[in-house]
C-alpha cells in the first residue's frame, strides 16, 4: 500500500473533472485520478452541443434559458442553481473558445448556434437557436480542448487508477472527507490518497440498462463509494431515456439531427410528434418524445417485422448539410446498420442516456450529508452530482454546460478550501475495505458469474424501470435486484493476477451497479406520480402536493448486517417560476 498526500484530489477526468482540474491546479497541489485515460472519457461521445444564450444568431437571454431548464425539469429543478447555470453559460462557452475549442462559425465569424429540444424563445413561444456546437462532435472537442489545457497547465494525472472508496473521518462530531482509496490497474497495487479536498467527477451510471448510449465504463463508481459510506443519493429514480438510439444497440443519434430538420416517423410514414407536441413537435423535451415513440410502438404503429422501433428520417435534408453538420452520426448509421441516411430512414428506439440524480451538492459543489449539512472537503460535479439543475428531466445541451459551469465552480471552491485547511487524519487502516473487497473476489470459489448477473440486471432494468413504470413492474425489479445482490455474494472471477486485472474490476463495477439499481428502483417505487423522466402508468399525473420534493436515499445497515434503502425528502428551491402544466 502506498500513501500519497495532495491538497486536492479529483476523481475522474471527463469534462467535469478536467474543468475542475484546470482551476484547482492553478490554486493548489492537485492530483487527478481516473480509471480511463482522460481522452477516453465519455464526454467525448457527446454530439449535439452546449447551451448558452449568446444571442449570436437570434434574440435570446439567460432568463429564457433558466425558464426552459426549470420547465424541462418538470419543476423539480432547484431554481437558484438553474439561474447560475444559465447565467454562467455564456462565460463557460467563451472560456472554451479562448482555450481553443473550434466551434462552428456564423458568416460573420462568431460562434454559430442551432436549435435543440426544449430550448425556446420567450417562455415557450418557438424554438430558439441556443446550442453552440462543433459539428456533431461537440463533446469530443470539449474533451480534447480541456485535455490540451491540462497539458498546458501541467495537471498531474494518475491514469488507470480506480477509486473504490471514500474516506471519512469524524472530527469533533463533524464528518469530514479525509481522502480516497484507489486501485492501480497496471499493478494491482492499492493507493491511499490523503487530501484536504476531494472532488467526484466520475460520471454516470447508465450501464445498469441494456440499451444505453453510455460507455461500458459508466458504472456509477463515485455514487456507490459515497453511498456505501452513508452519504445520500438524490433523485436517483430520474433517468433520461433519449428518444433516438440506434435500434437495439443504443448508440446515440443526436437530437441535433432533429434540430437540423430530421423527422420521426412511424410505420405509416406519419410525422407522429405533431399529435403529441403541436408546437415543438420533434423537438419537444426528451421524456415527451420517448413516451410518444413507445406509445406508437405499443399501439401497433412501430416499424419492422416486430414493430419495435420507429424511423428517424433525414432523407429530405441535403447531403451537403448532413456532411457538414452531422458527419459522425450518419457514419454510425452506415457502419453499424449498413444504412445510407441520404436515402433511407434510420431505425431508432429510446436509449438509456443520462442520470439526473446523483450525489447531492449545493451550488459550490459541496456534497450534502443530509438536507442541509455539508461534508467539509467533499465536492462533486458533472453527471455524478445532483445540484439539481436538471430536476426530473435534463434538457439537451445542458449537461455539457453543467460539467463546465459546476466543474469550474467546484474546482475553485475545493482548492480554496484546501489551501486554508489542514489535513484530516486518515481513519485507522484506511485501505481495509478495498483490500477486503479485492481479496474476497480474488479468492472466491463461488459459482456465480459476473457477466450473467450483469445481463440479468440489465434485462430487468430495461423491462421494468425504463420509459413506462408501474407499481407492479418496479416491484418485479426490486425483487430481481435483491436476488441478484444475494447471488453477487457468491460471484467469482477467473483472473487471479495482479496486472491489468479487468476481470476483477468488472466484478467490482457490477457491485456498484447493483447497489445503485436498488436505490433507483426503491426511489421510483415510492414516487407515486409522473414527472419528467419518471413516468408511472398507475399515477400518470404530476402530484405537486405530495411530490414536489427531491428524494434522498440513504443506505441503512441493520444490527444483523442487513442492508436497506431508507428514503427521505428534501424541498425544492423555487424562486420565480410557479409550477405550470408542461406543454410543448
Amino acid at each position, binding site marked *: 500500500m502506498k500513501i500519497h498526500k495532495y491538497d486536492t484530489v479529483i476523481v475522474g477526468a471527463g469534462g467535469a473533472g478536467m474543468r475542475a482540474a484546470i482551476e484547482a491546479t492553478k490554486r493548489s497541489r492537485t492530483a487527478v485520478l481516473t480509471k480511463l485515460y482522460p481522452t477516453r472519457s465519455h464526454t467525448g461521445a457527446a454530439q449535439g452541443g452546449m447551451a448558452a444564450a449568446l444571442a449570436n444568431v437570434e434574440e435570446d437571454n439567460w432568463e429564457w434559458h433558466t425558464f426552459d431548464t426549470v420547465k424541462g425539469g418538470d419543476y423539480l429543478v432547484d431554481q437558484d442553481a438553474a439561474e447560475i447555470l444559465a447565467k454562467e453559460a455564456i462565460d463557460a462557452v467563451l472560456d472554451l473558445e479562448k482555450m481553443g475549442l473550434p466551434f462552428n462559425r456564423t458568416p460573420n465569424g462568431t460562434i454559430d448556434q442551432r436549435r435543440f429540444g426544449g430550448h425556446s424563445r420567450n417562455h415557450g413561444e418557438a424554438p430558439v437557436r441556443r446550442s453552440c456546437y462543433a459539428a456533431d*462532435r461537440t463533446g469530443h472537442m470539449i474533451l480534447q480542448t480541456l485535455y490540451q489545457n491540462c497539458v498546458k497547465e501541467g495537471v498531474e494525472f494518475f491514469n488507470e487508477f480506480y477509486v473504490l472508496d471514500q474516506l471519512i473521518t469524524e472530527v469533533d462530531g463533524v464528518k469530514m472527507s479525509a481522502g480516497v482509496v484507489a486501485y492501480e490497474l497496471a499493478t494491482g497495487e492499492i493507493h491511499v490518497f490523503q487530501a484536504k479536498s476531494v472532488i467526484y467527477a466520475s460520471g454516470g451510471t447508465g450501464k445498469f440498462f441494456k440499451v444505453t448510449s453510455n460507455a*461500458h465504463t459508466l458504472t456509477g463508481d463515485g455514487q456507490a463509494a459515497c453511498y456505501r459510506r452513508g452519504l445520500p443519493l438524490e433523485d436517483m429514480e430520474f433517468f433520461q431515456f433519449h428518444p433516438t438510439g440506434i435500434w437495439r444497440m443504443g448508440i446515440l443519434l443526436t437530437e441535433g439531427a432533429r434540430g437540423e430538420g430530421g423527422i420521426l416517423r412511424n410505420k405509416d410514414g406519419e410525422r407522429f410528434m405533431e399529435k403529441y407536441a403541436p408546437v415543438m413537435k420533434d423537438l419537444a423535451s426528451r421524456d415527451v418524445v420517448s413516451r410518444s415513440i413507445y406509445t406508437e410502438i405499443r399501439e401497433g404503429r412501430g416499424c419492422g417485422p416486430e414493430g419495435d422501433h420507429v424511423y428517424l428520417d433525414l432523407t*429530405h435534408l441535403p447531403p451537403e448539410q448532413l456532411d457538414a453538420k452531422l458527419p459522425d452520426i450518419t457514419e454510425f448509421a452506415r457502419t453499424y446498420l449498413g444504412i445510407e441516411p441520404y436515402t433511407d430512414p434510420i431505425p431508432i428506439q429510446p436509449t438509456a442516456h443520462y442520470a439526473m440524480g446523483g450525489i447531492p451538492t449545493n451550488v459550490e459543489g459541496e456534497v450534502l450529508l443530509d438536507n442541509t449539512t455539508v461534508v467539509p472537503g467533499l465536492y462533486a460535479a458533472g453527471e455524478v452530482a445532483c445540484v439539481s439543475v436538471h430536476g426530473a428531466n435534463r434538457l439537451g445541451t445542458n449537461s455539457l454546460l453543467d460539467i463546465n459551469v459546476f466543474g469550474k465552480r467546484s474546482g475553485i471552491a475545493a482548492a480554496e478550501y484546501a489551501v486554508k485547511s489542514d489535513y484530516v487524519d486518515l481513519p485507522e487502516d484506511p485501505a481495509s475495505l478495498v483490500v477486503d473487497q479485492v481479496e474476497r473476489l480474488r479468492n472466491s470459489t463461488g459459482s456465480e458469474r459476473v457477466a450473467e448477473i450483469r445481463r440479468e440486471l440489465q434485462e430487468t432494468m430495461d423491462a421494468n424501470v425504463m420509459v413506462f413504470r408501474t407499481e407492479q413492474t418496479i416491484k418485479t425489479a426490486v425483487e430481481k435486484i435483491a436476488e441478484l445482490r444475494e447471488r453477487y455474494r457468491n460471484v467469482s472471477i477467473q*483472473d487471479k493476477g495482479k496486472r491489468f486485472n479487468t476481470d476483477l474490476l468488472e466484478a467490482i463495477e457490477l457491485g456498484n451497479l447493483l447497489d445503485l439499481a436498488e436505490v433507483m428502483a426503491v426511489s421510483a417505487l415510492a414516487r407515486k406520480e409522473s414527472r419528467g423522466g419518471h413516468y408511472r402508468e398507475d399515477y400518470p399525473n404530476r402530484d405537486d402536493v405530495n411530490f414536489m420534493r427531491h428524494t434522498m436515499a440513504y443506505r441503512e445497515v441493520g444490527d444483523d448486517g442487513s442492508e436497506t434503502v431508507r428514503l427521505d425528502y428534501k424541498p425544492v428551491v423555487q424562486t420565480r417560476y410557479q409550477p405550470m402544466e408542461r406543454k410543448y
Partner: protein
Amino acid sequence: MATPVMDKAEAEAAASPYITVTFRIRRFNPELSEHAVWEDFPIEIDPKERVLDGLHKIKWDLDGTLTFRRSCAHGICGSDAMRINGKNRLACKTLIKDINPEKPITVEAIKGLTVLKDLVVDMEPFFQAYRDVMPFLVTKGNEPTRERLQSAEARERFDDTTKCILCAACTTSCPVFWNDGQYFGPAAIVNAHRFIFDSRDEAGEQRLEILNDKDGVWRCRTTFNCTDACPRGIEVTKAIQEVKRALITRRF
C-alpha cells in the same frame, strides 16, 4: 416518405443470424510466462456484430483473463485500437462480416509499443510524443471580452485534424515508428497540424521547429499506412505533407 416496408437490414435480422467464427488471439501475460502464444476461441456470433462484441463474448463467457481496453464501443474514445487480420483498426468499429469470418480472425496488440498484457500496450510514449508538440492554443496579447472571431473558411482549414481521438492506430502502423521509437509519429504531427493551421494560434513557428527535429516530420516516408489505419478518416499523410510544406515555405 412512402410507407416503410421491411427493409434490407430487417429482413436479414429476421433470419437466424448466428455463425461460428474463430478468434485467434495473441495472448501474453508476464505473470505466467515471458512468451506470447496464439490461442483460438471458436464462438457463435452474428456477423453484423463488432469484433469488440466477439472479444466480450470470450471474456464474459469463456475466459475472464482475456485483457483489452475499451469504453465507448462506437469508435469515439480511442481505447481499442488493435491489429485485426494484420491491420490496425478499432475493434468496436470493425464488423465481423467485413473481415472474412470464414477464416480465423487474428487479433493482436498494436505494434511498436511495449505489450503489457494480451492486447494492452504501454501508451505512455505515445502520449509523450503528443505532449511534446505543444498541443494547445497559444495566443499573445490581451484576451478579447467576447469570442475570437474566425471565418468559416479558416475554421474549415484544420477541421480534418480536429477529429483525432488519439487511438494510436496510425502511429503503430508506421514502419518508421516500428524501427525507431524516437520518431514523433503521425498522431503527434496530426495534433500539431491542428494548431499550426488554426488562424487563432500564434505558436506555429515553435511547433514547426519542434517538428523540424531529426525525429520530426522528415522521417515520414509517405507510405500511407497511417491514412489507411485512421478510424476517423483523417487524411493523415496529407496533414504530414502540409506540415512539411509549411516548414519549407514558412507559410501556414
